[in-house]
């Protein structure tokens, strides 16, 4: 075995002839040493967030870890920030796993009728507390046989109320928001139950017809009968390569409350992988939204939207399939936004230890180059397992920062490698003109972090974070704020989809793609947040999915602005 250096290259064999003696088999040990210190040092700078435990938010993510190490146990669960009742306050929807009683015999019910295993919707009250409205909203029934995974939010029927799509190992559920504080399970009518092991999902409008379509990633062809343990005598979760790859699902919104599975005709089903995260952006500026799928230890997928209802997978040609060393990555979470304010959406993928969170910089002309080291991620990752992430301007300085929920996929990884930790604190890295540096997230408590959603929970103009933890309540990171200015934009599409998903919004030179998708299993505040630094006014440009180009000048900062799409170009 050749010793792989942390920068991703092999060691000089010649040097080792006369240098430090590395016994055979030592290479693996050395690699694992790359774990100390990085993820566990706490910067001394002032904390950007503080953790809060809001009254009423009593959710615990029940993943039911067993000695059988069923792979589904370590993968949930999602969180969504949405304003389901349009009262101006973000509410929180949390996806639960389910009850696993080993040994699983095949078809399981996961006890989802039991309150402990429900998904939960928490309505935010004016005082910052939350009320569990799951039952009254009609969301208590998660479906027996569904082990919950993730959540997507979007107004698929353009009625002004956000709808909820929950993914599962089992069947997925589409809840239509009735606009009166209740939801209806419309899965059967809509035809979006999926099946198998669905993970992340997201609403987007791939054909620019003004109706949100739905993309669902799927992880593995797995079932309890084929489950196995991979710890060489110590029970442990298996790597994805132990199970067959599967294809993802694309549903086209017909506009009548039903969807058509177009995975095959669109070309999406032609590629099988181990899909986890998904994010959307028009990376080549052709006016059609493209799809990036974070795949676990196979090539990453970049589905280029051909504009005619079909997609071509172009990750290799675009330079985002593998690392710059031509190596596979364990893609888990993903964000598809512009980190360096050049107006083009870039891609950041979270991964396992011994890999670096990969930054693919959009060079234009439909190609990317990896800039992991140049952006500082050589110092920020390599020791950690990243899941949900966001690229948000937490300090409102005009540069989007990174927050990553972390925790090793193997819950007993210490037994295999004492230098690894199953629980890890989150990573916060502030963006200094395109280079990221570790910052104080306000908590160095090691947790089994998974989902992460981003939004301004308390409407103070500073982006907050909600993360999920296996076997524990969510963590709510409230932003400590500061003196910089900000602008929050809600798009209201007329010709485009009502949420404006897919729009490219540029404010004083900063660009954001309108989307609630990205991260891992989770759905973000659909409002587009811009840190404005010292600027008190803003120039806004919106390129709507309809093709309409809208400009607004001298817009006052520090406000929540609704931008309505002009009816006519």
């Amino acid at each position: 075995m050749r010793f792989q250096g942390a920068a991703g290259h092999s060691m000089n064999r010649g040097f080792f002839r006369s240098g430090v003696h590395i016994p055979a088999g030592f290479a693996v040990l050395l690699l694992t040493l790359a774990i100390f210190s990085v993820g566990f040092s706490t910067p001394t700078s002032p904390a950007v967030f503080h953790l809060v435990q809001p009254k009423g938010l009593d959710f615990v993510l029940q993943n039911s870890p067993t000695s059988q190490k069923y792979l589904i146990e370590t993968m949930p669960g999602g969180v969504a920030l949405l304003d389901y009742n349009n009262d101006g306050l973000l509410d929180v929807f949390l996806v639960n796993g389910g009850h696993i009683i080993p040994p699983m015999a095949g078809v399981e019910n996961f006890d989802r009728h039991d309150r402990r295993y429900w998904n939960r919707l928490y309505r935010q009250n004016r005082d910052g507390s939350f009320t569990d409205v799951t039952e009254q909203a009609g969301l208590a029934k998660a479906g027996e046989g569904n082990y919950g995974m993730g959540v997507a939010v979007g107004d698929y029927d353009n009625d002004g109320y956000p709808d909820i799509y929950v993914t599962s190992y089992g069947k997925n559920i589409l809840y239509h928001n009735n606009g009166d504080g209740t939801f209806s399970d419309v899965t059967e009518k809509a035809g979006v139950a999926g099946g198998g092991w669905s993970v992340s999902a997201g609403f987007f409008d791939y054909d620019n017809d003004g109706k949100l379509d739905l993309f669902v990633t799927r992880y593995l062809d797995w079932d309890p009968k084929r489950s196995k343990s991979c710890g060489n005598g110590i029970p442990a979760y298996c790597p994805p390569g132990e199970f067959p790859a599967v294809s993802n699902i694309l549903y086209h919104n017909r506009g009548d409350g039903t969807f058509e599975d177009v995975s095959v005709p669109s070309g999406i089903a032609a590629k099988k992988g181990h899909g986890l995260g998904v994010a959307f952006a028009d990376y080549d500026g052709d006016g059609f939204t493209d799809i990036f799928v974070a795949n676990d230890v196979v090539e990453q997928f970049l589905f280029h939207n051909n504009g005619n209802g079909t997609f071509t997978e172009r990750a290799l040609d675009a330079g985002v399939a593998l690392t710059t060393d031509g190596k596979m990555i364990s893609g888990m979470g993903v964000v598809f936004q512009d980190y360096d304010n050049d107006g083009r959406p870039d891609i950041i993928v979270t991964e396992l230890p011994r890999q670096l969170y990969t930054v693919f910089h959009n060079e234009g002309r439909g190609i990317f180059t990896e800039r992991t080291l140049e952006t500082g991620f050589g110092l920020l990752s390599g020791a950690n397992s990243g899941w949900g992430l966001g690229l948000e301007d937490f300090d409102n300085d005009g540069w989007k920062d990174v927050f990553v929920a972390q925790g090793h996929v193997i819950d007993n990884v210490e037994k295999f490698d004492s230098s690894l930790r199953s629980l890890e604190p989150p990573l916060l890295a502030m963006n200094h003109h395109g280079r990221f540096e570790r910052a104080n997230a306000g908590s160095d408590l090691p947790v089994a972090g998974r989902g992460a959603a981003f939004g301004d929970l308390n409407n103070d103009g500073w982006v907050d974070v909600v993360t999920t933890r296996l076997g524990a309540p969510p963590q709510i990171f409230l932003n400590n704020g500061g003196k910089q200015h900000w602008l929050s934009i809600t798009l209201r599409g007329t010709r485009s989809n009502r949420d404006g998903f897919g729009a490219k919004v540029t404010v004083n030179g900063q660009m954001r793609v309108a989307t609630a998708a990205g991260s891992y299993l989770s759905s973000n505040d659909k409002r587009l947040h811009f840190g404005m630094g010292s600027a008190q006014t803003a120039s806004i440009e919106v390129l709507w999915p309809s093709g309409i180009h809208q400009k607004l000048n001298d817009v006052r900062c520090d406000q929540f602005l609704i931008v309505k799409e002009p009816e006519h170009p």
Partner: protein
Amino acid sequence: MNCAIMVLCMLAQMSSTGPALSPAAAQHLEAGIAAEKSHQLETAISEFRKAAEAQPDAAPAYLHLGEAYMSNHQYGDAVIPLRRVLELDPDLPSAHLLLGYAQLAQGYAADAIPHLEKVHETGALGIAQMQTGQVSEAVSNLQAAVKQRPNDPDLLYYLIQASEMLAEQSTDTLFTNYPDSNRTHQRRAQNYFALHQAAQAEQEYQRALAISPEVPGLHLELGQVYAETAQWSNAEAQYRIETQLQPGNAQAAYRLGEALLQEGHAKEALQELRRSNDLQPDMPETLYIFGKAAFAADDLDAAQKAWTRVIAIEKESPLAAQAHFGLAGLYRKQNKAAEAASEMQEFWKLEGRNSHTGDGRR
């Protein structure tokens, strides 16, 4: 081991020397040889025994009998006739060789050594010496044997084992006789490092450095502890000291370049990597990472040259595949689609080959 041919040659020589055989002994001997040729070992043994009984002073009969026993894995039975041969002809090389093997096979390494020494059978001798604790002699003899038979996995295995034993013995001596020396701390640090105990390794390196801050290599090794635990700024600091102590050490320059690249300082990394390549040209990994640093620093010409050179040196290795992949990205950036596609084709070709040989990353 390939001793059978040697023994057969010796046996052939033996058959043509010594006292004349009686007709009865000769008849049984020929029958035994014929049976042996047709792999009828039991018959051969029986015939050789009859030959020896027919003529008790016939060394060839005993020698063939011993050899047949050896072929039949009856090492204990082989010893008596082989000893008898040496009573009759004390200097007969084939008898010494066979007896040495027979005794070694039975675990009587000390008894085997004089016989193996007599015929200079360095491989088996090294193994025997290893088993009797003559480790440095064992290493020396096994090295000589490996030189003669470089493709013998058994010999390589025993050489590794003997070398490790020698290192262990030397370490014990170092630790016992010089418990507070810088080298003891250095060696302890290396051991801790191998056991994942980076904190202890760091501590021992610091102790060694406190005693002898200017011993070459210590800062480099400590830097590697930091590097492998992702403490890149600490690693960089140690590598910098090492490069000052040893400005001619290519590895130190390479390591410093690697740390700087990891920290995202591509241009500075490039300088050190260039220096490393000047000091020790054409190290493939130096060239590869040089290419990465150059690419990151937007010096595409330098990156292209470095990666092309890697491919020229490495041809079809995984590193060559990585260089092809790097070039593909470079050509994409230069808007040279055809060249990029060609490099990707080479990348996949090598990836496929390396994955088949178990040397790939997939």
